């Protein structure tokens, strides 16, 4: 009685776990990727100005593979920043130059994004809608 009940009750959870397995693995893989970008914000004096910052990206994974960091921008094609062969972790510093926020992704050998982080561009003074009024804002 106890055994039958036990077997009947145990079956559905096992099926459920098997169905979710690929997603869980993928999620675990994502969780095991460390991808940090510093600073996460670049501040310019005025809206619309190019913002400059020395940005450092650090990443690590559980297993060795070929990885790349790519830059994504809404108006431009994806741009490769740096690639590594047979590595499971590294860091890279570069000069950030942009007037808009940019997203960086860590991709594997199959061009699959494993993690991403964004450098937000902000400003102290908002751009004036009025032309030529240098004195304000």
């Amino acid at each position: 009685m106890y055994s039958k009940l036990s077997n009947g009750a145990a079956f559905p959870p096992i099926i459920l776990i098997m169905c979710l397995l690929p997603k869980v693995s993928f999620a675990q893989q994502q969780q095991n990727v460390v991808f940090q970008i510093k600073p996460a914000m670049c501040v310019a004096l005025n809206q619309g100005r190019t913002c400059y910052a020395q940005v450092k990206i650090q990443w690590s994974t559980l297993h060795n593979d070929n990885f790349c960091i790519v830059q994504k921008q809404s108006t431009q094609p994806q741009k490769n920043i740096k690639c590594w062969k047979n590595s499971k972790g590294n860091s890279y510093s570069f000069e950030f130059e942009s007037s808009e926020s940019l997203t960086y992704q860590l991709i594997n050998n199959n061009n699959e994004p494993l993690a991403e982080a964004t450098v937000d561009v902000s400003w102290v003074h908002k751009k004036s809608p009025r032309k030529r009024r240098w004195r304000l804002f």
Partner: protein
Amino acid sequence: MKLTQNLLYKIKLTLGKTLLVALFFLPQLSFAVEQQLDKETTLFNQTFSWQVMMGISVYSGHSPLKDVKQEDIVDYLSLSLMIDLYYKGFFIQSNHRRSVAITQGAEVGYQLHVDNDWAVDILAKTYISGYDPELLIEKKDENIPTLEGLKEREIGDAIALRYSRFNDDAIFSIDFANLTYWSKANGWLIDVYYNEVFFYKNWDIYIGGGVTYYSNQVMDYYYGVKAEDVTDARSFYDPNTGYKGTFEVYAQYPISKKWSFSAGVTQTYYSNTIGKSPLIDRQNITQFLLGVIYVF
């Protein structure tokens, strides 16, 4: 007590007129402050543009007045409120290109004409910082013979007509200012000013200079010594017209979305007619400024 009085005096010099003119725009300002997220607000099809900043700075440099030196910590500090507001041609503005904007008040005016590369404004502004000899003496341990018994020289407020030419990175302006109605100094002055901004990474670097030409009455009021004010330390002086020339490098750098850092150096040269005044110590003055600005 003395420190407090001195601080109040400084606040009066730097903020007094700015706050007064702000009252003129109080209804609009109050509305704008409620809209801090946008800083631009459309009301009845009219657009407000506004910005309020507070500046805290440390500055160093000789006073042109004889025997007036920076001694206490408040002598090196300056606290200021900078208001920029535009509504239907009316404006309150501070000159962001000059370090003096941190230590002096704003100007209030109206755009008479605006074109692509030139404009004509009518405005009210403090052109000359005044001084109170009694307060200056009181805050020092020693007497200042050249200032003893001298009446206060009040700030030089004026109504001016300004012609400006500008492009994206540079501005040239010439002010014709009349001090008759708003100042005890009377007379008039002409202020010619040029400034150009250079960008280096996140820095804005402003390089500028100007000449201010003072009429006889203005010179008499600030640099002259009348017969009834003559003492052993202070001879009679009736100056002719004079001028002041300035050269300035001023830089700003963003620290965060709310704070920016500013630094500047100003070299000022006073004409012989000012330099010869018994009240004046030197004709060349170099001033340094370091500060932070908070944007509301």
